[in-house]
C-alpha cells in the first residue's frame, strides 16, 4: 500500500509532464520514467515477471524507439508548438474523458477491497509459461506471425527503391 501511495502521485506528475513538455526529448524521457515507475509498481505487488517484462519491453525497446525516431527526424518549432497548445486542449480532453470515465466505472464496480485479498498468490513463471504455450498457443502463434509480417513490411518500406543492391566484385 505504501509504495502505491508514494509512486502513484509521482507517476501522475511525470505523465502530465510527458504531455505538457514542449521539447520532444523531455517528453520522451518523462514517458520512459512513467513506464519504469509502473514497472516498479508491478514489482512491489509481487508480479515480478510482468514488472521485468514491462521494464524490458517498454523502457528498453519502446522508449528507445521513440528516442531514435526523435534523433533521425527534424526537430519541430517549439514556439509554434506552445502557441498551438490552447487550441489542442479541448480535443485532447474530449479524447481523455471517455477513457477516464471507463476506468472510474471499472474501478467503482469492480472487486471491492475484501474480494481483492482473495486473489491467488503470485503465479510462478513456469505456470505462466505452461498457460501461454499450452492453452494459448493459437494466440501466441498468431501474434508471432503478425509481428513477423510487420518486420518484413517495415524492411520493405525502409528500402530505398531507387538504390540497387550492391553487386559483389572479384
Amino acid at each position, binding site marked *: 500500500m505504501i509504495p502505491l501511495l508514494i509512486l502513484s502521485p509521482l507517476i501522475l506528475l511525470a505523465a502530465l509532464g510527458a504531455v505538457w513538455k514542449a521539447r520532444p526529448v523531455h517528453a520522451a524521457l518523462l514517458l520512459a520514467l512513467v513506464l519504469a515507475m509502473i514497472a516498479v509498481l508491478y514489482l512491489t505487488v509481487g508480479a*515480478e515477471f510482468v514488472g521485468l*517484462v514491462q*521494464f*524490458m519491453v517498454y*523502457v*528498453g*525497446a519502446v522508449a528507445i524507439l521513440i528516442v531514435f525516431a526523435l*534523433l533521425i527526424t527534424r526537430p519541430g518549432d517549439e514556439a509554434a508548438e506552445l502557441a498551438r497548445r490552447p487550441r489542442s486542449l479541448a480535443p485532447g480532453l474530449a479524447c481523455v474523458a471517455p477513457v477516464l470515465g471507463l476506468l472510474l466505472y471499472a474501478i467503482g464496480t469492480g472487486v471491492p477491497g475484501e474480494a481483492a485479498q482473495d486473489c491467488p498468490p503470485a503465479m*510462478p513463471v513456469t505456470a505462466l509459461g505452461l498457460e501461454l504455450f499450452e492453452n494459448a498457443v493459437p494466440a501466441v502463434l498468431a501474434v508471432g506471425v503478425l509481428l513477423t509480417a510487420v518486420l518484413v513490411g517495415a524492411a520493405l518500406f525502409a528500402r530505398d527503391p531507387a538504390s540497387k543492391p550492391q553487386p559483389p*566484385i572479384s
Partner: protein
Amino acid sequence: MRLPALIALWMGALSTLGWAQTTKAPPLLAPESWPRLPQRLVEMGLQAAKAPDWLVSIGSFAAAAATVVAVFLTAFALLSLIERKTLARAQNRIGPNRAGIFGILQPVADGIKMLTKEDIVPTKSEWFLHLLAPVLIVIPSILALSVIPYGRDWLPVPMELGMLFFFAVGTMTEIAVFIAGWASGSKFPMLGAMRAISQMVSYELPLIISAMGVVMLSGTLSLSGIVEAQAGFHLGFIPAWYVLTPWGFVAGFIFLIAANAESNRCPFDLPEGESEIVAGHMTEYSGFKYALFFMGEYLGLFAISGLGITLFLGGWQPPLPGLACVPSWIWFFGKLAVVIFFFLWVRATFPRVRIDQLMRFAWLCLIPVSLLTVPVAAIWQYSGGGALGWLLCSAILLIPFVILTVRFNRRMATSNRRYTFAE
C-alpha cells in the same frame, strides 16, 4: 624460474584452503562462506541488539550489497591497471611503472586525479540531465552484478527470474547513453550516442537469443538453477558445461562477441573511437563524471562476463571432479579472470571495424546463427547427446557458418556516399 615458484605457491594456497574446508571449521568461518561473512556478522550483530525484523533484513541486504560493490570496485581498480599493463606488453612497452612497485598504486593516483579535476558543465548543456547520465550508467551495472551466483553459498540476491532481471536492468544503459549524448548539447556526443544506441540495440538481440537455448535446456530462468543444471561430468572428467556441446559452443561464442560489442570494447568501440568522434557520448564530461562512465563500463564488463560464465562455463562448478574441495567462488573468479584476459587480448589484437561492417555483421551473421542455435539446442536435447547428436547438430550449425563465411569474404563494391549533413 619464477613461474614454477608461483605455481607451487598457488597450489599450496589451494590445498590449504581445501584442508580448511574439509576440517570441521564452524560454518561461519569455512572458506566457502568467507564472502558472506560481513552479511552474517551484520545479521548476528543486529539480532543480538534486539533490532526489529525489518531492520535486520535491511541491514543484511545492505551488507550483501556492500560486499559485492567492494569486491568489484577493487577488481575495477585492479583491472584498469592490468589492462594497461597487458596492452603495453602486447605493444612491446612497459606500461605504468612509476607509482608503487609494478605501478600498483597507479589506480589510486588516477582516482585522486579524477576527483580533483575541474567539473566542467558546458553552457549549452542541460545541467540536470548532464548530471543524471553518469549516475544512470553505473546503477544498472551494479544491479546486474547483484543477481549473479558467485559461489555455492554466495548469491547476493536470490531471484527466480535472475536472467530476466539482468537483461531488464541492462536496457537502462541505453537510455543513460542517450541522455549523456543529448544533454551535452554538442555534436560529437550526439553522434556518439546515436552510434552507441544502434550498436547496443543490434547486439542485444544475439546476446539474448543465444542465452535462450540455455534457458530451454535447464528449464529455469534462475541463474543458480542454471549453474546447478551444469553440475556433473561426462565420462568422469569432462565437465557438463553448456559450452562443451555443439550448440552451446556456438551460442557461447556468439554471446562472447555480442558481450564485447555490448560493453563498447575494441574492436567494436565505434561509439567512443578516439580518431573518429573524440570520445563519443563522454566527450563533454570531465573529472569524476568521466570516471563514473569508465566505472560503469568496467562493472558492465564484469557483469556480462559473469553472466556468460554462469550460462555457458558452468558458473562456480569446478573444471575437474577432484577439485570440489576448493571454495566455489575461487573457481568463479578464476574463470572471470580468464574471460577478462580474453577480452584484453582481443582488444590488443583486432583493429576497429567500420560502422557498416558492424551492422552487417550483427544483422546478417550473428542474429541468423543465434536463431539457429535455439532449434539445434532442442535437437540436441531429444537426440540424447550421443555421437549421433554431435554429428547432426554440428552439421546443422556448420553448413550456414561456411556459407556465411564465404559470403562475407567476398569483397563488397562500395558506391560513393554523399553526406548530406556535411554539405
